[in-house]
């Protein structure tokens, strides 16, 4: 496994298990060969538990079809590229659980907009990757299908480290060569935080850049599809396929990004990167200090200059996020009622009993906590105190970012306060787990694009990421600058 190389952020060795790397070799190494090599990586890395469901036979059929198309010169944009898909994207005829017992055995009858686009571009799905239930968590410990292990930890001889979450399965699969790339979603950091913990690249596009249709909803005003890859170039290739508006999602935006992959070929030119004083002045550790310095070094090396900026309300991002996300979750998850699909409790006495027990038995602890708190924050007498208040602070955070982007082109700060923590570290206190998201949630509240880059190795040998954040719809240029920062 080459995760140690990637974790060090040096990227000198070409890793062929990337989309671009495989493409270079696809004349000698066919799509079916690729599926076989992914299948053997999944088999030998079974203990990682990166996938909830694998579909190797279907992948092999798709790969055969891809090989034929390539031979006849009819290869599409992602022909034969083997991808893992987070198990909260509905995939037609393939079990989709969202990491929840309540959806065990659920077989979607339709394909999500984003996965449909990937299939139409020739991508091959190897399976559905593990996640915290409905995306609620930062470690995959909240999955009903068992936690995923961190492959970088395994490479160091330890199975104690979490892969991050909620897209822990996607990040682990990419880091362990169990897919060339993976689809994921990010509501409060679920792409970037696991990417940081597993030493890979995680890109959350501008809110609205991709359709949410067919993605199992957690918090609709924050949920965003994105990608986990080993390189920025791979992220750009996938973005060229999945971005776009969709009549079925009225929050998706028709925006011409001008070609993500294409933008990487342009030199980025001069640019300025703001460092928020409010984050820079926080108490730090040698590891975190190392990430800060690495960010500044790489910005300069890429031709950018760094300056301090003020984001006065950013320190309220976590409480704002948790109120909004939980309120939206309580509404979105009302659909799991044991009537139309999903788990139903045995022998219900009446309809209320059917609802109450199906949901009590089907949802995990954290999901129940979040639904109940969200319900409370929306209930009569508390709506203004909690939900409306959080929506107002959200406006202030959004405006802080807008003002900052008048002065600088991008912002940057670390992705996570620490490298991967150990399983069980936050069992006693849910709030301590929420604090892990301090550097990721502000971006979701403002709907901004952000990428986590594997740029630092902590003292214990585990990777840590740095984030580059841009104004809404700056995604293509953001990737171009991020790419030059990884060189």
């Amino acid at each position: 496994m080459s995760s140690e190389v990637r974790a060090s952020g040096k990227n000198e060795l070409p890793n062929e298990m990337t989309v671009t790397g495989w493409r270079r070799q696809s004349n000698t190494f066919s799509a079916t060969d690729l599926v076989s090599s992914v299948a053997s990586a999944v088999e030998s890395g079974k203990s990682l538990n990166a996938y909830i469901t694998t579909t190797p036979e279907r992948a092999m059929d798709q790969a055969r079809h891809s090989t034929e198309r390539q031979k006849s010169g009819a290869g599409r944009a992602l022909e034969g590229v083997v991808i893992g898909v987070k198990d909260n994207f509905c995939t037609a005829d393939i079990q989709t659980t969202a990491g929840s017992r309540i959806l065990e055995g659920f077989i979607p009858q339709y394909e999500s907009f984003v996965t449909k686009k990937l299939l139409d571009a020739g991508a091959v799905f190897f399976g559905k990757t593990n996640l915290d239930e409905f995306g609620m968590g930062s470690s995959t410990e909240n999955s009903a299908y068992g936690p995923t292990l961190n492959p970088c930890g395994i490479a160091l001889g330890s199975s104690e480290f979490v892969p991050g979450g909620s897209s822990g399965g996607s990040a682990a699969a990419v880091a362990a060569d169990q897919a060339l790339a993976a689809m994921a979603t990010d509501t409060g950091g679920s792409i970037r935080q696991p990417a940081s913990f597993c030493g890979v690249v995680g890109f959350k596009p501008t809110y609205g850049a991709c359709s949410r249709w067919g993605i199992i909803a957690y918090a609709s005003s924050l949920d965003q599809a994105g990608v986990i890859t080993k390189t920025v170039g791979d992220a750009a290739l996938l973005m060229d396929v999945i971005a776009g508006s969709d009549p079925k999602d009225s929050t998706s935006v028709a925006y011409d990004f001008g070609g993500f992959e294409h933008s990487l070929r342009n030199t980025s030119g001069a640019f300025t990167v703001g460092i928020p004083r409010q984050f820079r002045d926080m108490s730090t550790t040698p590891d975190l200090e190392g990430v800060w310095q690495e960010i500044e070094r790489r910005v300069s090396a890429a031709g950018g200059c760094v300056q301090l900026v003020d984001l006065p309300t950013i320190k309220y991002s976590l409480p704002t996020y948790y109120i909004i996300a939980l309120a939206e979750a309580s509404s979105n998850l009302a659909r799991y009622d044991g009537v139309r699909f999903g788990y139903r409790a045995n022998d219900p006495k009446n309809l209320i009993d059917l609802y109450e027990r199906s949901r009590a038995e089907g949802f995990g602890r954290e999901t129940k906590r979040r639904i109940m708190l969200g319900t409370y924050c929306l209930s009569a007498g508390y709506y203004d105190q909690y939900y409306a208040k959080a929506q107002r602070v959200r406006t202030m955070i959004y405006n802080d970012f807008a003002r900052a982007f008048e002065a600088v082109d991008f912002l940057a700060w670390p992705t996570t306060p620490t490298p991967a923590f150990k399983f069980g570290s936050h069992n006693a206190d849910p709030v301590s787990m929420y604090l892990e998201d301090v550097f990721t949630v502000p971006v979701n509240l403002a709907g901004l694009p952000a990428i986590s880059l594997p740029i630092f190795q902590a003292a214990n040998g585990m990777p840590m990421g740095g984030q580059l954040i841009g104004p809404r719809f700056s995604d293509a240029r953001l990737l171009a600058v991020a790419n030059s920062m990884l060189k």
Partner: protein
Amino acid sequence: MSLDKTTVAKIAYLARIEVPEADREHMAGELSKILEFVEQLGEVDTTGVVPMASVVDTGLRRRSDLVTDGGYVDAVLANAPDRAGSYFAVPKVVE
């Protein structure tokens, strides 16, 4: 705000999640801790600030009032825990 067992029972009913009597005390403690954490928003002066529901302009998009979809009863019912003919089936609701 510190929640008590009675409030937890009320929220549980509103959320339609059964929380057994024995678990309510513990749940009240956990939920109270999270509420205490989010209550720091109380110190922010939000006078005159407009609440934000979404970063995207949420004006409703209109489309022609035409049937564009439908006619697949079996797909709709494919994941039903219980069905009766072309319907979802639930326990008797009229006592």
